[in-house]
């Protein structure tokens, strides 16, 4: 690892000013992606600003059907939240499928969303739930937030502070893991809210997470696996690599969508 200067921020505004005063600065939350990347010398922030101890970024708040998850909430905390499980258990189950128990104790929802790894789980949930990404500067709709591979609408120095969404009537997530890396080769999140169905796919798209419009139309008309059977998934725009070609992933999208629907009930 290259040398770095560590700073622990006590507030969002302090974090932003530490970042602005840093050289090649990066934020770190749980660090479950960034620290391994720094170990491999694929990232070399001159200054590292730690967001993990900021009180305003912690906690899960639920007001009726409105859910607000602080960006520094860990995957383990989301997975174990009985309060969240009563309104949106699919998100708890998704969090419990990320990485392994030790990674879930450190990794955070804000870190995952801000990093936008094309095989990460949370971006699919945020997109399918039409979530709002609350930042240090503004609120961004998930539809506008995820812009490409590891790319988001975040400006330089902007911090994801919280994720907010309305709990859907029904939601489910299923993923097919790469047997070695355990990342999603394809993961599908389905959500139904006041008749509106959204289907988001992670792990499969060459530009990262995306919505599957044909499945959304089919499920809006008929919320059943039969409706999905009639959908043809176009392999165009899907990833082809040594783990599986685009046709294989196109099939996985369909199979995972069916499993996600079964999980949603």
């Amino acid at each position, binding site marked *: *690892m*290259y*040398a*770095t*200067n*560590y700073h*622990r921020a006590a507030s969002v505004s302090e974090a932003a000013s530490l970042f602005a005063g840093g050289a090649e600065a990066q934020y*770190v939350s749980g*660090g*479950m992606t960034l*620290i*391994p990347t*720094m*170990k*491999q010398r694929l990232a070399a922030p001159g200054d*590292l600003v*730690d967001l*993990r101890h900021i009180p305003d970024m912690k906690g899960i708040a639920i007001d009726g059907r409105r859910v607000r998850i602080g960006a520094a909430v860990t995957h*383990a905390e989301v997975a174990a939240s009985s309060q969240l499980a009563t309104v949106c258990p699919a998100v708890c189950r998704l969090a419990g499928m990320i*990485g*392994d*128990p*030790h*990674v879930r*104790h*450190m990794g955070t929802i804000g870190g995952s969303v801000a990093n936008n790894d094309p095989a990460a789980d949370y971006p699919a949930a945020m997109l399918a739930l039409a979530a709002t990404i609350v930042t240090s500067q503004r609120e961004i709709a998930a539809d506008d937030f995820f812009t490409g591979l590891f790319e988001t609408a975040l400006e330089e120095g902007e911090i994801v502070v919280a994720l907010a969404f309305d709990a859907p009537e029904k939601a489910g997530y299923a993923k097919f893991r790469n047997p070695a890396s*355990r990342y999603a080769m394809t993961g599908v999140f389905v959500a139904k809210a006041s008749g509106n169905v959204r289907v988001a796919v992670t792990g499969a798209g060459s530009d990262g997470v995306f919505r599957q419009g044909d499945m959304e139309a089919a499920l809006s008309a008929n919320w059943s696996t039969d409706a999905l059977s009639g959908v043809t998934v176009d392999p165009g725009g899907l990833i082809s690599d040594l783990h599986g070609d685009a046709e294989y992933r196109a099939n996985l999208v369909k199979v995972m969508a069916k499993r996600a629907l079964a999980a949603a009930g």
Partner: protein
Amino acid sequence: MAKVTLTVNGRKMSGDCEDRTLLVHFIREKLGLTGTHVGCDTSQCGACVVHLDGKSVKSCSILAVQASGSTLTTIEGLAGQGDMHPVQAAFKTHHGLQCGFCTPGVVMAAVDMINRHGGALDEETVRSELDGNICRCTGYHNIVKAILAANAEMSASRQAAE
């Protein structure tokens, strides 16, 4: 350079290190606690698992400065005066190790999962909870047996205490 202060196995300890020093190297080289192992360079193997503020984490994927101010338990902190921890004893009884390299991390992961599941552990849960710990000797079978046996013993002694 940073000064890192931790409560390690019940004792307050501190040391100076570079900001880039990984927690596992701080534990091994600054604190001299070499039971925590480095088994890979890719954050996958789990040989370095310790408990940070009561939760299992990979000490190879955290900077020592990130952990400063926290409470840490390493494999050296599990046993009581002369007695092995029930999980350690079960690993001995059920031959849950062969070469032993991964064992400190596996035992720390086992204690964490038993704490979290509080008695409600079955084989399937144990196997899925072991996702972050790699063992190249045992084929996991005796590790799973040992964890289930320790879990049964620990719940029995919890019930007896109540």
